[in-house]
């Protein structure tokens, strides 16, 4: 089921090894057109590394990556610092990797709310503004695959919700596949078709079925916004030690993860609702 022939990109047991250490290993998933796949996981769990493999920036040291030929990709990296020696306006930045018509650029900038910044120099923008500009640039490319690495960092709360709505709308209108990265284990979009939790390997994956039912979320984002947000939480029942070994919930230490590790699936096993999924907010993952 992972090797659908029409998939935009398929990762097959892919892993990246650096300096004798596996940054991420055994990653297998695929992204189809019109599908939003979200990668979540703690710092250093290999989310960006996995995205870079999918994009072809990093070549896997193990396993294989298949991308559909002539796939038009748009990428919003986690961090992009424009050197101050570069004279670069937002308008020129929109055309960075391909010709974009004036209308397309204007529409994309309007969609992310940065029309007024067209003539501004990129390096004078605030973090949130630049994030919106990067998103606009990606949208204007009319991509087949859109990869967003923490696309709402630095964006204020209300803007964040609007941007998530926008991402969903792009998927519906352009019908592209979207790979979304969030380090936030608690807030992912309801529109996400699949959530993949990484912790150096694919910890678990599935649909974010547990929706924001908690009063805190409704209170925080308002009743209208609540349906667009989902809660996805689980506890990791094991942790990875610096030397690569694994400490399990019962305190035992082994060289590798057990197959059943960390799998507090939402839909799996069926009929066995996990007590952790009551909607409370956990910060320990």
């Amino acid at each position, binding site marked *: 089921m992972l090797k659908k022939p029409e998939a935009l990109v398929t990762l097959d047991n892919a892993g990246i090894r650096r300096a004798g250490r596996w940054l991420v290993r055994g990653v297998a998933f695929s992204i189809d057109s019109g599908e939003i796949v979200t990668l979540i996981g703690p710092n250093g769990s290999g989310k960006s590394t996995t995205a*870079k493999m999918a994009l072809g920036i990093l070549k896997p040291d193990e396993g294989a990556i298949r991308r559909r030929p002539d796939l*038009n990709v748009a990428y919003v990296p986690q961090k*992009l*610092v424009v050197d101050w020696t570069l*004279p670069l306006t937002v308008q020129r930045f929109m055309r960075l990797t391909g010709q974009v018509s004036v209308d397309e650029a204007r529409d994309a900038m309007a969609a992310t709310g940065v029309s007024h910044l067209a003539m501004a120099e990129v390096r004078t923008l605030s973090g949130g503004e630049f994030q919106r500009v990067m998103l606009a640039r990606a949208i204007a490319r009319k991509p087949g695959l859109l990869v967003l690495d923490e696309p709402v960092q630095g964006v204020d709360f209300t803007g964040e919700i609007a941007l998530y709505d926008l991402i969903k709308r792009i998927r519906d209108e352009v019908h592209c596949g979207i790979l979304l990265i969030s380090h936030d284990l608690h807030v992912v979009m309801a529109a996400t078709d699949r959530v993949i939790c990484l912790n150096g390997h694919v910890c678990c994956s599935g649909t974010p079925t547990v929706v924001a039912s908690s009063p805190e979320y409704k209170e925080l984002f308002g009743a209208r916004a609540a349906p667009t947000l989902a809660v996805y939480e689980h506890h990791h029942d094991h942790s990875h030690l610096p030397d690569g070994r694994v400490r399990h919930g019962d305190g035992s230490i082994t060289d590798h993860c057990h197959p059943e590790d960390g799998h507090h699936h939402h839909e799996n096993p069926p009929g066995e609702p996990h007590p952790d999924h009551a909607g409370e907010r956990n910060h320990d993952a």
Partner: protein
Amino acid sequence: MLDDFFTRAIVAGVGVALVAGPLGCFIVWRRLAYFGDTLSHAALLGVALAFLFEVNITLAVFGVSACVSLALLLLQKRATLSADALLGLLSHSALALGLVVLAFMTWVRIDLMGFLFGDILAVSKMDIAIIWLGGTVVLAVLAAVWRPLFAATVNRELAEAEGMKPERANIIFMLLMAAVIAISMKIVGVLLITAMLIIPAATARRFASGPEQMALMAAGIGAASVVGGLFGSLEWDTPAGPSIVVTALGLFVLSVLPTFSRGAVRGKEPEKRTTEIQKENSP
């Protein structure tokens, strides 16, 4: 009209400046000032090898510069040294090798000063042909790779992800640099090439609002420096190559004066441009 040595000097110098300006912009944007230095030092090894094997100096300099650029690309990929340490290593090794090779050839007596500081007043019609033909080729190739090269300058990973093939653009850029060093060495000399690449671009940065605009301005400012420098050299009987650089410096200083400056280069600390994710905590 090319019979007059002074006219020849101006035509040749302007030709070099028009090419050095746009390439110099990339040197400034990519923080490769030391790289220009390294290539021009390596050029001296090229001169020595040209005498040793009795081949065309321009070709030999291009060959050695190209080898040094590619060596740098390879070393950067595998070695654990930083780019500036590698450049220092290559730069001074090439310079020393060049001087040692020259010393072995006791039958060759060359004017080292001529290669270090250039001899623009001695350019021949042949030199002018090489500069303008070579320069046209360099600019044409630069125009062809402009978008991928600029995208890779802004962010390599973004360019890679969106199919700009930054690796290929980088290699082409390195070869263009080697070509510019080879054709301009005779004009301004090994030691002053970096100045011709960087100073006009730095001056243009103050006024430019876009990369293409900055490249054109740098070319213009460089050409103005050549003309001004040569007339100054004629007027005050100063060495031609250094006079050109001093004129370029003068234009730069003018641009920094408050009247002209828009405060373009202000504040910001130089930051690391590449985006490396935090990998420390992963298993």
